[in-house]
């Protein structure tokens, strides 16, 4: 056997490595957690990496998984070796093609990082719900349980599919395996060539469609023959398992790693066994090793080939001694007789029992259970609990393990203290901020340890559901033996806290073992640091006899030009303290790694990191631990005692990181959660927040308008409301004429502000004595936190202005309206949320929102809290997310309901005229609800109506009572990103726009798939670099607005708040007022653009000035009035495309990576801009002439 390289990679890279080496075409669509596989493939092809047949595979991105599977099907049918990568809903969208591919006996391997399906909620995390949903398609299902297996079985699957002609779905657990970094052995090209002989490749190609040998495939068949045709494939499925085993045996000859369809692991005379597939099998293996060493007779059958299910091989794997079996499924099928693996095991046993041949003495006692849904932890303790359950005479069937089910009482108890981890395995946990680079440094450490020492190494990384101020936890293990611990560390020898502020919030030392080491990044000195620790932390340090090290990492980072990134500094500390490598060697390895990581980005960056590493050790110190606790600081309560009961009871536990402990009974049965909960989180993530200077303020309202997090608010109010104001509360006379004598305040929510600085950037007012100061200025948050908390609370108590008095079509007026979208976890300085917030201010009290999956559904609806809020009357947006692809149709359904129920209510009103009185009915039917006042009055009428109806004892009154609220205007908003609107949801969006129904579509156009990490969409600009467009997108952005405009009946606007806030406001107001479909395409700057997010509004301005995002409004209502319906709102381009693109990394990086191509695309982009401006200005002129002609006709008439 040849010497194989040891590499440290994650499961996605392992699968992609083989897939890229053994295929010719790859068609994908991004979806978490499989996106990285496609991205690896794309990146490799982009740099010319060849497959084992010496050609660079073609990697393409489609508009949806449905599209990707169609392209895969086509490429396969024409003879290419073709693959795809997907998960979850993406896999579901591939089902139709999977039936076709299997029905046509087509060789392919789909690699799936298995993920939960959206049911009561979406989850991006891992389980087998998706792969179990395709077990009927005819694809073979091959499971891998670790990163090494993932690489190995990717090849075994490829060999088996070519041999058997049965298509394969090769899966491994999303996140737990797909994102786990592990030291593994890399396969050689020679391994792959040996497993994939040319004759099989040739046979596959020969089955491809070609006009040189024309055939017909994909016929329509009738009752006379379809059935028979369906049965023709049976011999292939019967032969498949043996072919897979043969491939596994061949693989073992090449590599020494033997796999079987069903691997038995454990005591040879086990009486109790578990049957399981996926990463849980590794945890079970570790537990079995431990328990058998204790004398227990336990074992496990690890299922690799789940489909085609080979009864023969399965029965052959069962030890004769087995009496009881627990089948563990990582999925749930409500209403079924049992989960899929359980059912197949029972079927296999029963069939064998029927025909004779069971190796066991009698039919074993079989129970089934569910575990690990959505990456729920599955630990050795839980494995042991299952074995313990099997010891019972009457073990629980259809159990759950890993949760506390106090509703159906399905759950098994487990002992959290039980551990199988040997002391020889080093276990370290690192708490960091997303922004400080902790994860990347830890990935680097794992590579250093894995590839530069003899240790086996594993890294797993837990991320936040927030995109700003997010906390990351890195779990690192390494030791002399292979690591099979597919679960989070609960007992660490080393815990590092990279941000001192975490000490106030998280109980990090609960996971450290006695005698362990704690490393803290702190601004305090050796003498001061002890007294800054909360009481609980001090006690844990003393009680657990910890060693305590500290460093002012931020000071070192600042001094060495690293800014906020303390990662290299803390990494150096880790190596220095842990002694894994001799200090000098560790530093040399870190530097080598720095050179490798940053070398491409320039020597200055490398040198800066070197300096930081060298400067670190001088500042690292060990703290002498006193004998007693001295601190009086307590960990802050998670939420205020003023929070609603559900928030205190449930939400607070999730916020605090104790969501795993919540029992089933705490959760709503249908996924329905209260809104207005983000206000209770008090995340305190800003280092600096804006401070109001009333003397400089010109009261324009722009700061509140652009605030992405609704943390800067404005109120106008009568002076009497200042009574009892805190001494530091700021107020000034209101300058407008509409509220004479009133007061005006701008107040910041100090604990919710993310410190993005967008408000300060946009503020046009300057202090006349010190021009660097504006009307709002960033100041450090901690010193004023308490003061501003009191001011914020006081501010909230000031009454909201009467909406009927507000000029909503002015910036100033619109910002007097209460935002009903507040404190989202979007990226600090997000470009999307100002639009969302503005809609909530204008119409939130009467809005129902359909939200496509993506950034906006995550910051809008990811637990623990939601930013969607309520007004003082308890009204606010009702929000739901259906899927990614169906959002327009979903919102359209809302409108169908509203229209139908409104119609029915009006019919009932007419029918009840005699009971209600003609005046009442007429007033309700004829109400003008085009203004806030009109809606206010109608609500009052409906309230009166309901009182009247309650007193009328007639069936009709009951009917009307249940739908009377539909008599008040409702506003339907359909929101989502460009990935939805331009790509996956485009067909549905087009249909809904053509429906004529009154829906409002808000496209938050970041010109890239933001939520999944920057993949190209059809909104991506020409010349921009994105994933799947590493060489710059060669094609111009789709003009969605012009397409929508072609109907003539759709209100269309393109807006960019940073260029014109008033045009944005007017467009949103007009769109909502238009009684028909409306679409607003809102340019949204994004972290995926590689820009200074604090100046995002400037980028919004500049892209419009360059002509790359022209602004316009098309209002069909104006055409009906004989007016020009089209207005080009942006001026002629005033800066060149290059002037703009040089300010954004998404464009400028191409000038660094491929200057010639960048120049070429820049020229094309400029030509496109020039052409677009000519077209739009011509369109405006044409419409104006048309309108004039209409007017002339009117005069003549």
């Amino acid at each position, binding site marked *: 056997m040849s010497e194989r390289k040891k590499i440290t990679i994650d499961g996605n890279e392992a699968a992609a490595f083989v897939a890229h080496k053994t295929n010719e075409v790859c068609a994908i669509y991004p979806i*978490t*957690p499989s*996106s*990285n596989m496609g*991205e690896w493939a*794309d*990146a490799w092809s*982009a*740099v010319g990496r060849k497959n084992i047949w010496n050609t660079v595979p073609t990697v393409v991105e489609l508009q949806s998984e449905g599209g990707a599977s169609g392209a895969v099907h086509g490429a396969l049918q024409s003879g290419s070796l073709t693959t795809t990568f997907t998960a979850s809903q993406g896999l579901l969208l591939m089902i139709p093609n999977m039936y076709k591919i299997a029905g046509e006996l087509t060789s392919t391997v789909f690699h799936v990082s298995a993920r939960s399906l959206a049911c009561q909620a979406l989850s*991006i995390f891992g389980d087998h719900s998706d792969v179990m949903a395709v077990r009927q398609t005819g694809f073979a299902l091959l499971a891998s349980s670790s990163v090494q297996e993932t690489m190995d079985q990717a090849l075994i699957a490829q060999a088996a599919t070519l041999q058997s002609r049965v298509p394969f779905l090769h899966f491994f657990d999303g*996140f737990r395996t797909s*994102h786990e970094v592990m030291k593994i052995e890399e396969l050689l090209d020679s391994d792959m060539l040996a497993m994939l002989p040319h004759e099989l490749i040739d046979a596959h190609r020969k089955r491809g469609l070609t006009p040189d040998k024309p055939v017909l495939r994909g016929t329509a068949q009738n009752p006379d023959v379809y059935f028979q045709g369906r049965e023709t494939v049976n011999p292939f499925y019967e032969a498949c398992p043996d072919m897979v085993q043969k491939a596994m045996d061949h693989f073992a000859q090449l590599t020494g790693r033997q796999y079987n369809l069903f691997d038995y692991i454990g005591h040879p005379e086990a009486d109790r066994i578990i049957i399981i597939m996926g990463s849980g099998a590794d945890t079970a293996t570790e537990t079995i090793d431990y328990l058998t060493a204790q004398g227990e007779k336990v074992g496990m059958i690890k299922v690799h080939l789940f489909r085609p299910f080979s009864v023969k091989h399965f029965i052959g794997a069962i030890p004769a001694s087995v009496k009881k079996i627990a089948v563990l499924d990582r999925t749930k099928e409500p209403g079924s007789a049992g989960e899929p693996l359980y059912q197949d095991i029972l079927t296999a046993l029963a069939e064998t029992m029927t025909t004779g041949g069971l190796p066991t003495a009698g039919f074993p006692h079989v129970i089934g259970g569910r575990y690990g849904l959505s990456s729920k932890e599955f630990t050795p303790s839980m494995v042991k609990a299952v074995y313990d359950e099997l010891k019972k005479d009457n073990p629980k069937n259809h159990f759950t393990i890993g949760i506390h089910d106090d509703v159906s009482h399905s759950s098994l108890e487990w002992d959290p203290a039980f551990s199988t981890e040997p002391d020889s395995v080093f276990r370290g946990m690192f708490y960091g*901020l*997303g*922004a400080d*680079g*902790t*994860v*990347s440094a830890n*990935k680097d450490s794992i590579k250093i340890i894995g590839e530069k020492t003899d240790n086996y190494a594993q890294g797993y990384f837990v*991320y*936040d*559901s*927030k*995109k700003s101020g*997010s906390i*990351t936890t890195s779990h690192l293990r390494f030791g002399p033996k292979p690591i099979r611990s597919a679960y989070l560390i609960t007992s660490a020898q080393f815990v590092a806290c990279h941000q001192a502020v975490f000490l106030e919030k998280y109980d990090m030392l609960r996971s450290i073992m006695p005698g362990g080491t704690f490393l803290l990044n702190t601004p305090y000195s050796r003498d001061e640091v002890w007294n800054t620790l909360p009481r609980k932390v001090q006690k844990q340090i003393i009680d657990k006899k910890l060693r305590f090290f500290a460093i002012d990492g931020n000071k070192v980072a600042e001094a060495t030009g690293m*800014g906020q990134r303390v990662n290299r500094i803390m990494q150096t500390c880790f190596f220095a303290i842990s002694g894994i490598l001799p200090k000098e060697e560790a530093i040399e390895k870190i530097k080598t790694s720095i050179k490798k990581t*940053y070398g*491409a*980005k*320039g*020597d*200055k*960056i490398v040198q*800066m990191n070197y300096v930081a590493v060298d400067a670190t050790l001088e500042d690292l110190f060990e703290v002498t631990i006193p004998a007693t606790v001295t601190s009086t600081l307590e960990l802050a309560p998670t939420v205020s005692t003023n929070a609603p009961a559900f928030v205190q009871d449930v939400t607070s536990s999730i916020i605090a990181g104790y969501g795993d402990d919540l029992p089933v009974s705490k959760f709503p049965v249908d996924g329905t959660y209260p809104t207005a909960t983000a206000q209770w989180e008090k995340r305190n993530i800003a280092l600096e927040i804006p401070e109001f200077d009333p003397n400089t303020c010109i009261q324009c309202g722009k700061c509140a308008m652009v605030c992405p997090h609704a943390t800067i608010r404005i109120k106008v109010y009568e002076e009497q409301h200042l009574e009892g104001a805190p001494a530091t509360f700021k107020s000034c006379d209101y300058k407008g004429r509409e509220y004479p004598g009133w007061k005006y305040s701008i107040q910041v929510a100090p604990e919710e502000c993310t410190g993005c600085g967008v408000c300060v950037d946009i503020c046009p007012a*300057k202090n006349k004595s010190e*021009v660097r100061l504006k009307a709002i200025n960033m100041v450090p948050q901690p010193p004023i936190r308490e003061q501003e908390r009191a001011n914020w609370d006081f501010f909230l108590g000031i009454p909201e202005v009467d909406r009927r008095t507000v000029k909503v079509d002015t910036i100033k007026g619109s910002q007097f309206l209460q935002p009903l979208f507040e404190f989202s976890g979007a*990226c600090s300085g997000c470009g999307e949320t100002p639009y969302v917030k503005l809609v909530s201010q204008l119409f939130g009290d009467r809005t129902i929102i359909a939200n496509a999956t993506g950034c906006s559904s*995550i910051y809008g609806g990811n637990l623990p809290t939601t930013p969607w809020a309520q007004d003082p009357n308890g009204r606010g947006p009702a929000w739901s997310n259906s899927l990614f692809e169906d959002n327009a149709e979903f919102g359209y359904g809302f409108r169908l309901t509203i229209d139908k129920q409104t119609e029915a209510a009006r019919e009932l009103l007419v029918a009840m005229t005699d009971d209600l009185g003609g005046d009442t009915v007429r007033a309700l039917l004829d109400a003008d609800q085009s203004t806030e006042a009109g809606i206010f009055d109608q609500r009052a009428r409906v309230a009166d109506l309901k009182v009247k109806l309650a007193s009328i004892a007639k069936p009709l009154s009951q009917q009307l009572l249940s739908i009377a609220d539909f008599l008040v205007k409702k506003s339907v908003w359909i929101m989502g990103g460009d990935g939805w609107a331009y790509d996956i949801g485009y067909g549905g969006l087009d249909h809904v726009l053509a429906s004529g129904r009154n829906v409002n579509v808000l496209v938050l156009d970041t010109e890239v798939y933001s*939520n*999944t*990490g*920057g993949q190209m969409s059809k909104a991506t600009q020409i010349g921009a*670099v*994105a*994933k*799947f*467009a*590493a060489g710059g997108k060669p094609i111009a952005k789709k003009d969605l607005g012009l397409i929508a405009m072609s109907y003539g009946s759709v209100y269309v606007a393109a807006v960019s708040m940073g260029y014109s806030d008033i045009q944005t406001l007017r467009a949103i107001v007009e769109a909502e007022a238009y009684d028909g479909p409306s679409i607003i395409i809102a340019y949204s700057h994004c*972290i*995926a653009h*590689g*820009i200074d997010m604090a100046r995002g509004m400037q980028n919004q301005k500049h892209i419009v000035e360059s002509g790359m995002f022209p602004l316009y409004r098309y209002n069909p209502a104006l055409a009906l009035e004989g007016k020009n319906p089209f207005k080009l709102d942006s001026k002629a381009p005033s800066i060149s495309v290059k002037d703009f693109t040089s300010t954004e*990394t998404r464009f400028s*990086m191409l*000038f*660094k*990576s491929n*200057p010639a191509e960048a120049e070429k695309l820049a020229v094309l982009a400029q030509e496109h801009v020039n052409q677009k401006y000519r077209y739009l200005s011509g369109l405006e002129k044409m419409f104006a002439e048309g309108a004039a002609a209409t007017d002339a006709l009117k005069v003549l008439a």
Partner: protein
Amino acid sequence: MDLTTTYMGLTLKNPLVPSASPLSKDIGTIKAMEDAGASAIVMYSLFEEQITHDQKALDHFLTAGAESFAEAISYFPVQTDYNLGPDEYLEHIHIAKAATDIPIIGSLNGVSAGGWIDYARKIEQAGADGLELNVYYIPTDGKYDAAAIENIYLEDLKLIKSSIKIPVAMKLSPFFSSMSSMAAKLDAAGADALVMFNRFYQPDFDLDKLEVVPSLNLSTSAEGRLPLRWIAILYSHIKASMAATTGVHTHIDMLKMLMAGADVTMMCSALLHHGVPHIRKTLADLEAWMTEHEYESVKQMKGSMSQRNVAEPAAFERANYMKALQSWKITV
């Protein structure tokens, strides 16, 4: 007519050299300047701060938000190589050298000697015939006295000179307490040429926005008086070549500088204003003037009106200032 001249050891076919400007960013324009008659080209400057800034910015923006959120571990595709700062510049020099037959002079702009040595070597390796160092330093920190500032220039020069073999020119600020002394020190430290003078772009105020804004005004011929004076004064006192680099717009300006003692005249604003063909016109005008005035060569006129060679050396000194003021006509 013999227009040849020698500048920092390089023999040039005439004394008109386009100075560092955006014009040299394009290979086509470089070729056009050569075709129009430019005798050498000083490339646009490689800015030390720009290199550092670009690298830091690229790293920052490519990694901002990465490894923070489970669905978006990164936001940009992996690139294995970037053409950063010096790489791009060096490649440009390499191409320019291959595309032309005239000397190509690299230009480094910055203040720290340490960061320069590596770039200087690379510029030499890329094929540059000479290197111009532009120490663009505004001494705003009061703790550095004049000697300390002068020392920066001298140390930078010595370090670079000891690192490379191609000739090195120092582009100077006119704001030294003793220009003559400074020139002598630089000469002694090995400068192959002094380029006089750098035009510091002075910031302006935007009163509507209350912002300090950069301003870029092209020079005028009148601004040539400052280098004219100092070239005239320094002529024959230093071994290093001298280049006049402010206010050279016409053949008249060239003639004055040459007569003052310049070895070459460097043109920038006029080319930005009139375009590359202005080189051909200026050279033709120069030759015509010399023919008309019966000069045979540039060498013949070089330094002919330097302080040493004029009848009234005091004209370059304070007495001249008094005279100039007195001759000013006050318009009421």
